[in-house]
């Protein structure tokens, strides 16, 4: 009996270890392949048998960073994502608070629908509109459209956090003569600050990753990094080292931010549509 269960345990351990390895290979392989290709010389990359051992070189990264105004595009992405996130917080936090506190379910539903609408539906009218106003290739156009992603996401995430705050705390403050606005700002908001950070980061990631809006509404001055890299690939001769280095540089900020908010990211994503 004892021997049997021990045997069973070993079997289970082998099964689990094998499972873990099989399960981890697909996601890790792609990222590993991207990163190692970025460190290879052109000769190593194009070797018909993939090279596991090679002398790493930073040339690809250097080349990408020097060429094509890459840093400029990174900066554009950063500015647009930051503003889209900040505005979404300013507008979204009071709205989410109100929806949670006054149980404004219809409003919540409306916001969910706004999130689900395919992005192409926004693109056509906004393109015509911004074109008429000569606002194509401005930060204004891009930040406005990125709000379509960040605002509903912020509100939806924050409703959950505000609902978790017990009403008693604010009521006690109000008995002491505190205004509602003040109790929101000084009592409730500090309690949900983890949620605020999570929704800010999540908004930032999705604005950073956004491709479609920038593809149409940006130009040489405001091009964001995904569009810039897409163009840089299609117009130049295939340069896998540069491609991998550029891909690594785009992906890295998103992955680092993901690590910070592991738990909340799932909450943010399961609200419905993830991309548009």
């Amino acid at each position, binding site marked *: 009996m004892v021997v049997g269960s021990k045997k069973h345990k070993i079997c289970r351990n082998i099964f689990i270890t094998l499972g873990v390895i099989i399960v981890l290979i*697909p996601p890790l392989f*792609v990222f590993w392949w991207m990163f190692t290709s970025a460190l290879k010389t052109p000769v190593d990359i194009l070797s018909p048998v993939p090279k596991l051992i090679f002398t790493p070189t930073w040339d690809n990264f250097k080349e990408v960073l020097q060429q094509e105004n890459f840093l400029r595009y990174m900066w554009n992405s950063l500015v647009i994502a930051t503003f889209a996130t900040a505005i979404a917080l300013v507008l979204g936090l009071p*709205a989410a608070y109100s929806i949670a506190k006054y149980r404004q379910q219809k409003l919540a539903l409306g916001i969910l629908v706004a999130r689900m609408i395919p992005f*192409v539906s*926004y693109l*056509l*009218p906004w393109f015509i509109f911004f074109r008429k106003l000569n606002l194509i290739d401005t930060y204004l156009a891009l930040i406005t459209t990125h709000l379509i992603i960040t605002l509903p996401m912020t509100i939806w995430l924050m409703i959950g956090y505000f609902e978790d705050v017990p009403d008693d705390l604010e009521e006690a403050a109000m008995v002491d003569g505190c205004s*509602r606005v003040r109790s929101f700002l000084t009592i409730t908001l500090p309690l949900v600050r983890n949620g605020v950070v999570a929704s800010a980061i999540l908004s930032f990631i999705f604005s950073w*990753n956004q491709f479609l809006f920038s593809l149409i509404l940006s130009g040489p001055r405001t091009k964001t990094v995904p569009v810039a890299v897409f163009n840089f690939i299609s117009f130049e001769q295939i340069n896998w080292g540069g491609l991998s280095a550029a891909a690594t540089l785009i992906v890295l900020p998103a992955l680092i931010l993901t690590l910070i908010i592991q738990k909340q*990211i799932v909450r943010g994503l399961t609200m419905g549509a993830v991309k548009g």
Partner: protein
Amino acid sequence: MPDWALIPWKVVSSFMRAGAVANKAEVKTGIWHKLFTHFDQHLNWYFPLPAILALAAIVAFPMVYNIWLSLHDWFLVSPIGPQWVGLQNYVQMFQDPKFWTTFWRMLYFIVGALAVQVPLGLLLALFLNQEFRARNLIRTIYLFPFAATPVAIALVWGMMFNPELGVLNYFLELFGLPRSLWIASEKWVIPSLILVDSWEWTPLIMIITLAGLQSLPKQPYEAAVIDGASSWQIFRYITLPLIRPTLVVATMLRSIDLIKTFDIIYVMTQGGPGEASETLYLYTYKTGFQFFHMGYGAALVVFVFALVLVFNLVLARVRR
């Protein structure tokens, strides 16, 4: 939480403190005080108002404009403005053979992707529902595929798909399988795209399903063990029926996203080779932004929107 994240909060709270001091001043009857009190008493109106106005401007306006536009004929580049044509664009849509091919292609892509992702996601979730040490590590790593920038992911997969030098063909040969053209072949382009999409999104189904599994009640399992049920019987007659609602929700969420798949297809194939990977969503995009046929494009947009809305209504019903 990092300190820098608190900076905006500190700014706001110092403002508030200043406001509170002003509020406590003797003048309790001034016009500002009255306005503030009115505002304070009606937060349920004033708090959501800015967000509602913003959403009305950025979300509702485009939708209304789309519907208006879909009733007109208009090439963006032509000097003549939009011409009223009534429902002509919708009639044209249902007679347009390309609309139907791209529609069926989209369905092929959606059904194919779901057929891979849902069973695989369930399987992964069942595996991760066991107790073992690496579990949290796996769960963290499984966030990466869908948090990573899709354009970058598409570029890397495009590189791996290369028929001559791509690493995937190397693997196929290693296992004695024939090389594939992957996204360069009309026949294999959709399955290849399904592969990429599944790589990105199966983890999400796994995570949703895992959360569902962990919230299941314990009692039925205890009873089944006492009754001597086999693991398969437990899965088939207890786990599967209990987890089905979660799976349905995950399936619906993915279907909505799959309708709207753009980034990976556009970056890797732009609808090619030929038109072999042009889904309805890409066709809509191209009608508007490559052929500048705005009116017809708007009609397609309205159709895609209606499709997503139907899925959403079903989802809302399922969730309840």
